[in-house]
């Protein structure tokens, strides 16, 4: 089965849906989930094929790489495709007035996300990125509430601005090199080492960073997450933000490794961590706390990416995986506690299971051993000490300070949950929704098998850019092995 089908099938289904539902209205309800389920099966088969025969490069339309568009059926792309299909299926929105149109948008989102995960062509990445973006503008407005519409419009403006800047970066790269293929660009690093190349990287970090919740253009995050359905917030914070990072990961691993522009990404990440955690500390309701904490976590990922090298990339992937499993579960569990944080007093005793799991997941975000979040932050600090020669102390200090703030607001929430207060009136939302339970189970599996996952992530990173990384490998201590050793003791 060709991996291109992962893109073609959901788009085909999306095109047919508006006509099909005019014949039979019920199509709008079952069509979307069914197609995504089929796509998930195909993605899993393609992923397994890569495990057996290794990464493949696909020349779309049979036109070989620099002339045509190249897709990479590699560990990173197909893992992301499997996770995306799974997350869309589990987090299918329910509170929408217009089910058929939301199904159409989600189908497009699935197809475009798979394309974004696999594409190895600069402009094609931009097109799929924009497609994912437009689908999320629609999703953000899907519940039809006035505040959600405003949040969606403001998100659209930031997103369009970011995309225009990213396109400017791509135009600069093309004007300088005359090619868009990532493999070919990887061999032209001296052409991209001048101001045009550095500027292009900066512009693309800003542009693709909109979706990845990175520093300058992330005002939309709390607004959108506060006013959409919790499943949509979970989907966007969980997997869509990771797709933005994935683009940057490919760019850095294949083209911009060692570029001075990475310094910019580093400080964007640090500012994201600091501002995100401080804003989360000051936030007044649960949704915004989770939204700002998401900005902080993505900032950490950006720092890890900017440091690069094997350790940095593995740290980024572990932090992403941790956040991918933890944040959706937190959004879904927190559904039972809407409104102000002050109203939380004593609510935890009404739903002990949900509250205990909430605290456990939060501990992983803070980075308490033996949870996966700890290994992410540990490898991140390791990468800082290995790669940064000047100012490592400042960097580590800022990140640890942000972690302390993070711990402070999560402990404050925990104290409120289990503190005294009137016994809450029972609402209809169960303490632990079934979907949240699935995410928690996956999270526990990750916690137990951190070592194995670490080994696989190492393979993922090696699949990205074989030669240079293997050369650089000897410079670093073997991080996955240390994860493995310590992980098994725990």
């Amino acid at each position, binding site marked *: 089965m060709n991996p291109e089908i992962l893109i073609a099938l959901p788009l085909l289904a999306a095109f047919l849906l508006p006509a099909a539902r005019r014949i039979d209205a019920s199509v709008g309800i079952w069509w979307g989930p069914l197609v995504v389920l089929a796509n998930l099966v195909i993605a899993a088969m393609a992923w397994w094929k890569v495990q057996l025969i290794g990464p493949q490069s696909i020349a779309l339309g049979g036109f070989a790489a620099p002339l045509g568009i190249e897709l990479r059926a590699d560990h990173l792309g197909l893992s992301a495709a499997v996770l995306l299909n799974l997350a869309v299926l589990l987090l299918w929105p329910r509170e929408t007035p217009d089910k058929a149109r939301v199904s159409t948008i989600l189908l497009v989102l699935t197809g475009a996300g798979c394309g974004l995960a696999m594409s190895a062509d600069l402009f094609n990445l931009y097109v799929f990125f924009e497609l994912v973006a437009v689908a999320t503008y629609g999703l953000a407005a899907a519940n039809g509430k006035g505040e959600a*519409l405003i949040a969606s419009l403001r998100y659209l403006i930031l997103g369009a601005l970011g*995309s225009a800047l990213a*396109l400017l970066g791509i135009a600069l790269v093309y004007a300088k090199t005359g090619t868009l293929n990532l493999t070919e660009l990887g061999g032209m690093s001296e052409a991209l080492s001048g101001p045009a190349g550095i500027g292009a990287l900066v512009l693309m970090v800003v542009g693709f960073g909109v979706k990845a919740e990175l520093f300058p253009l992330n005002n939309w995050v709390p607004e959108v997450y506060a006013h959409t359905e919790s499943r949509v917030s979970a989907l966007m914070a969980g997997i869509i933000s990771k797709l933005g990072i994935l683009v940057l990961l490919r760019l850095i691993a294949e083209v911009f490794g060692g570029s001075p522009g990475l310094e910019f990404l580093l400080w964007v990440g640090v500012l994201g961590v600091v501002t995100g955690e401080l804003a989360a500390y000051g936030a007044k309701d649960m949704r915004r706390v989770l939204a700002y904490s998401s900005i902080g976590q993505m900032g950490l990922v950006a720092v890890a990416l900017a440091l690069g090298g094997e350790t940095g990339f593995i740290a980024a992937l572990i932090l992403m995986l941790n956040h991918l499993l933890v944040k959706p579960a937190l959004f879904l569990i927190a559904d039972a506690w809407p409104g102000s944080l002050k109203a939380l007093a004593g609510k935890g005793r009404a739903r002990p299971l949900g509250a205990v799991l909430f605290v456990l997941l939060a501990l992983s975000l803070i980075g308490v051993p033996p949870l996966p979040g700890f290994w992410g932050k540990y490898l991140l600090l390791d990468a800082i000490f290995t790669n940064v020669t000047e100012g490592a102390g400042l960097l580590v200090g800022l990140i640890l300070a942000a972690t302390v703030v993070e711990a402070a607001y999560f402990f404050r929430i925990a104290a409120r949950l289990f503190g005294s207060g009137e016994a809450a009136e029972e609402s209809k939302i169960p303490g632990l929704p079934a979907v949240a339970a699935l995410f928690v189970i996956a999270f526990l599996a990750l916690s137990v098998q951190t070592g194995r996952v670490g080994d696989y992530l190492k393979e993922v990173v090696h699949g990205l850019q074989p030669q240079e990384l293997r050369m650089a490998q000897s410079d670093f201590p073997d991080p996955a092995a240390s994860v493995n050793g310590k992980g098994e003791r725990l």
Partner: protein
Amino acid sequence: MNELLSIGNLLYGGAAGLIVIGLFAVVARRHLIRVLLGVAVIEAGVNLMLVAAGFRPGAAAPIFDPQAISGPMVDPIPQALVLTAIVIGVAVLALGLTLAIRIHRQYGTLDTVALTRIVNAPAGSPESRAMMQRGGGGHES
């Protein structure tokens, strides 16, 4: 050569100028329609930059004509990319305008400061309800 330099300055300078003008609308204007139009101007500047990147002096349009003497042609790729980028820009702009129409109808304003206040008001607070009334707040510039 001097002529070529001036064309280059005109195209690249024009592209940079359009981007800065659009960015001015985005950062300094409060009315969201103007901000949207600012983004559209930025996109126009970026597209101009992309087309200019494929320019070669004296080259023909990349369309083969069996009768014509074959000479050098300009790079066809940026032209195809710009076509794609223009359509993407139109789609995003149309969606943004639709959202703006709906929001203006519900709240009577597109002033970004007033809308920020609505979005950040705690749910169910008197402020958020008062803003629901048409013409309840904000002013248009």
